[in-house]
């Protein structure tokens, strides 16, 4: 019984720290995005709140928290309040299976415990995919319940976009699963340790998954509703898309969900294609007498990789214009889908030849 109590306490600590780090990273990203966009456009970005504007996220958060939450007349009140939560929860719980550092089995007070992954389930990858598909409900219901034409149109467009690109995400990862023979995020990472030439995006034999990675990252950008695929919130035509009518904390939740999803897909891309916490060159990992600090370098490389992907998201936003809706659907169904399918066929044939 004591065992269960300790286990529970450890798990709760883990979950609280992961959720805390994710929410802090979201706050940091809102600032970073504006800074990076600013620098790319030869501006300074936010400068007023605190030195170099670093307290801007705090100010934004406090403002949104204390703002009036308007429920428009004719809206479905229950659905209108539920939709932001339905959107945020799937984005947060995906982090339960991400390995942030090396696989360690620590014994604390007689309880086996893995400090860097909340739960290593056998179906980790599918768990994330399954909950990513639930994110569409927040968007659809948010758009539908607002009783506004822009919201409804934005919600529908968004839902169709999400399901179209989800298919491509699902197809793009099959190659990696085939090479690693596992659905567990921990096992997939461990199969790639030893340097960047063993990461699935580059591993020359049997077949590098770089094409699959490109498909995955494009589809992920579309799934997180980021530019150039930010059709759901196309300002120039739909005001703000499915959250036109939202204000205050509920609006903040949709925002949180979008950024948490960005972090989540960056983590998934890191784990599936870029070796997770593995250092790009073996000597960059702590060895020998520093073995017990291996987790530090592991977490460092994981963070570096995730932030590289996050920077890519900002870079895309600063560079590319928005697609038209018919272009978006055509691209997803007629370009990405055949490429992802072809990748599966070629990977399986090559894997058979080299096995």
């Amino acid at each position, binding site marked *: 019984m004591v065992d269960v109590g300790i286990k529970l306490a450890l798990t709760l600590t883990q*979950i609280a720290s992961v959720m805390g780090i994710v929410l802090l990273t979201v706050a940091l990203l809102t600032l970073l995005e504006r800074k990076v966009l600013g620098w790319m456009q030869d501006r300074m970005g936010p400068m007023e709140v605190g030195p170099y504007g670093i307290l801007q996220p705090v100010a934004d958060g406090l403002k949104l928290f204390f703002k009036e939450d308007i429920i428009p*007349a004719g809206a479905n009140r229950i659905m209108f309040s539920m939709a932001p939560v339905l959107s945020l929860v799937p984005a947060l719980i995906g982090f339960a*299976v991400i390995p942030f550092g090396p696989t360690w089995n620590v014994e604390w007070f007689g309880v086996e415990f893995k400090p860097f992954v909340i739960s290593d*389930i056998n179906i980790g990858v599918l768990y994330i995919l399954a909950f990513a598909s639930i994110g569409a409900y927040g968007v659809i219901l948010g758009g539908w319940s607002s009783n*506004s034409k822009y919201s409804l149109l934005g919600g529908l467009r968004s839902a169709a976009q999400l399901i179209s690109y989800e298919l491509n995400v699902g197809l793009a990862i099959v190659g990696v699963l085939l090479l690693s023979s596992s*659905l567990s995020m921990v096992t997939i990472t461990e199969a790639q340790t030893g340097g960047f030439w063993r990461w699935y995006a580059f591993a020359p034999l049997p077949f590098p998954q770089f094409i699959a990675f490109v498909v995955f990252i494009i589809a992920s950008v579309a799934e997180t509703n980021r530019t150039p695929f930010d059709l759901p919130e196309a300002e120039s035509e739909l005001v703000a898309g499915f959250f036109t009518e939202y204000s*205050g*904390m509920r609006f903040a939740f949709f925002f949180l969900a979008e950024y948490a999803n960005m972090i989540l897909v960056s983590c998934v891309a890191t784990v599936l294609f870029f070796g997770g916490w593995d250092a790009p060159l073996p000597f960059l990992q702590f060895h020998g007498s520093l073995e017990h600090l291996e987790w530090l370098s592991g977490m460092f490389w994981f963070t570096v990789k995730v932030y590289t992907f996050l920077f890519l998201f900002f870079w895309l936003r600063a560079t590319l214009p928005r697609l038209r809706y018919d272009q978006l659907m055509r691209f997803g169904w007629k370009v990405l889908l055949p490429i992802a399918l072809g990748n599966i*066929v070629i990977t399986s044939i090559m894997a058979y030849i080299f096995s």
Partner: protein
Amino acid sequence: MVGLDLLAEYLSKYSPILIFIVLALGFGLVTLALSYLVQPKYPEAEKLTTYECGSEPFSDSRMPFPIRYYVIAMLFVIFDIEVIFLYPWAITFYDLGIIGLIEMLIFIGLFVVAYVYAWQKGALEWD
């Protein structure tokens, strides 16, 4: 009783996920509730109207929409099921050998037939 040990280990892997889901839901609901308690509430008829570029909203906003969205959703259901068949195959690929490869090539072949059919019939066209 090897089976029961494995069973306990298996369930102990899923309990953190259940706790995480409950905590995430709780975080969402509690934050919304706290914000509701501290925020000002001054509803006005004008403020509560939905946004329509400044003009008064006319007609019910929950209008019917094009059937294409429905077609996309239907195609998605079918393709999604096909993709799900690929996962158990992918992770047992090295155990299945040549038979696994050939049967999956047949499966993907039929997938492609369905895909080409939908393309040719214009179900993937948007405009």
